[in-house]
């Protein structure tokens, strides 16, 4: 089911009467193609969860429209939208067994959709099998691990075959190992069922690794929408560039003069077609190449060996972060006792942004 959001806006009245309304979601317009897994990504408080609540109908929008396929569902109550929602804390009913929890939505069906007990049972077991908890049906939620509870919650959301599946921070309550496992699991379940799935996360790793498409948000405004790699390789502004990637992008104060980008006094990169101006420079950690004759000289702080590759930690007066982190292949040896290290930069890993608006300034072939 294709999901379309048109100029969706949600304002919350301010707590004190005189203050301004809080705009949680500001003029959202985007289209989610059928059968895709979408990650809504942004720092906490940016309106991701509100967006999810708008889509599932727990909150009414202030203005704008929501369409599932061709149906306008903006004014429909949540129960008539055909959405499944997995809550951040799962919201499993503690007094019911796993099977009863999964069957709960089916027992609410009335009229033509009403099922017999055997049918409900069959559906519930099917959903449980899909998320691989069919061995735990008689247990109570308190007897399950976090990961198992998560699966029950997904099964409960899936059992009535929703048109759209929504997951609110699905991995935030799991430990690091389970998180890796569960995100693969979500991907698998999504692909097996083919249900359009939207999940909310503040963890860019999570969003990047399993989404077909990510939507990066900041204070209620969509910043960028695209395939994860595309957004990573070509961020539209400084916020998106800094939000995506671990270790995070290195940001410098720079200047463009005569078609060249200067960080400090060193001309580090050619920027054809960009007028002279002060800029913010973002360089991905993997954009550095060890080069004795390289233009970019930094003071070496330490070298961290991580097996597969080496992380060079250094400082530079123009850097906005406390340290600069560059990742280079482990076969390149760095003299740990050296005072300084010289790098040359890969132009495709260097982004420049307008120093006032933070918008990306494209240069060269792009």
């Amino acid at each position, binding site marked *: 089911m294709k999901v379309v959001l048109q100029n969706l806006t949600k304002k919350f009245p301010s707590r004190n009467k005189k203050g301004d309304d809080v705009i949680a979601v500001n003029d959202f317009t985007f289209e989610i193609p059928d059968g895709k897994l979408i990650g809504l990504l942004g720092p906490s408080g940016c309106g991701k969860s509100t967006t999810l609540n708008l889509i599932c109908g727990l909150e009414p929008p202030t203005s704008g429209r929501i369409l599932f396929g061709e149906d306008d569902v903006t004014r429909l109550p949540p129960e008539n939208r055909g959405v499944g929602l997995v809550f951040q*804390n799962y*919201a499993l009913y*503690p007094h019911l067994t796993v099977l009863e929890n999964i069957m709960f939505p089916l027992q609410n069906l009335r009229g033509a959709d009403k099922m017999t007990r055997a049918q409900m049972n069959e559906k519930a077991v099917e959903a449980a099998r899909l998320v691989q908890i069919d061995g735990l049906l008689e247990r109570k939620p308190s007897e399950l691990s976090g990961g198992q509870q998560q699966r029950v919650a997904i099964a409960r959301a899936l059992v009535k075959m929703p048109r759209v599946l929504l997951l609110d921070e699905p991995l935030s309550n799991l430990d690091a190992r389970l998180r890796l496992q569960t995100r693969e699991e979500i991907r698998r379940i999504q692909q097996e069922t083919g249900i359009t799935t939207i999940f909310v996360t503040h963890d860019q790793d999570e969003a990047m690794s399993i989404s077909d498409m990510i939507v990066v948000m900041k204070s209620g405004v969509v910043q960028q929408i695209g395939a994860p790699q595309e957004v990573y390789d070509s961020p539209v502004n400084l916020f998106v560039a800094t939000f995506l990637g671990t270790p995070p992008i290195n940001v410098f104060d720079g200047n463009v003069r005569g078609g060249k980008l200067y960080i400090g006094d060193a001309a580090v990169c050619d920027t054809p077609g960009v007028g002279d101006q002060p800029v913010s420079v973002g360089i991905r950690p993997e954009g550095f190449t060890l080069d004795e004759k390289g233009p970019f000289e930094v003071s070496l702080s330490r070298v961290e060996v991580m097996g597969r590759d080496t992380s060079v930690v250094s400082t530079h007066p123009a850097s906005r972060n406390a340290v600069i982190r560059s990742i280079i292949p482990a076969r390149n040896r760095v003299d740990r006792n050296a005072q300084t290290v010289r790098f040359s930069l890969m132009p495709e890993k260097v982004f420049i942004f307008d120093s006032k608006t933070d918008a990306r300034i494209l240069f060269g072939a792009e």
Partner: protein
Amino acid sequence: MKKKSLKGWLYLLPAIVFLGCFMVYPLIDVLVYSVEEGYNSASQTYTGIGLYNYSYVLRDPYFLQAVRNTFLLVIITVPLSTGIALLISLGLNAIKPLRKLYQTVYFLPYVTNTLAVGLVFMILFKRTAYSDGLINLMLRWFHAGPVDFIDGPYWAKMFVLCFYTVWVVMPFKVLILTSALASVNPEYYSAARMDATRSFRVFYKITLPMISPMIFYLVITGFIGAFKAYSDAVALFGTDLNAAGMNTIVGYVYDMLYGNSGGYPSFASAAALILFAIVLTITCINLLISKRHVHY
């Protein structure tokens, strides 16, 4: 190690002394009294050991009346007060404006002086030379009554006693249940809404099980409290409850000790132990049922 345990006992001493003097010793004493036949409190002598006191009490029409009154009171007021308290709490939980005000209003009886409450009930129910009481006034609108609630027929007196008891225990139950309702995670309701759960089913399948531990707590303490009822009856019908036919078991015990017909600690002890046995049995049954129905 020895020194340490000595120290421990020392710390416990005040509590042990007090509990021993005012709980353990009297308990044992009651047991002793209840089997001493023909005990005379003036000469402190008795004629023999046996169960005569119990058989006397169990055959005493006043005691049987008291048992009947107490059971009626328990069976009527405990479910009624818990049910009404649940309705009020649900209502309080559902409204937004003036919630604080209503909460205060419902809690007022809890902090109101018993004498003041007695006065109010007097105005409501008692017939005097000047008026028939407010309730009778209202009954007249419907061309019924007047009924003498204080000195009249048994059912009328029982009605007033039950009404009073329900009213007095209500605030505490409302307080407990509103806080229990407020502590149910709202996510469950959102989840239920997503699944198109009808509101009755939400109540029956989610709210009720979630607050069931508190409901059972109230039922058990309600049973115990109602079995021990006495002062309420005195407040309404005066001290001669046997004459009014409104005595309770605890009232009977008191009368046997200090009342006009008093001075029989053996009979009082036997009655007290019978009450104890009843309360114990009912509480055990309650706990057994709650184990099957309370979910955590």
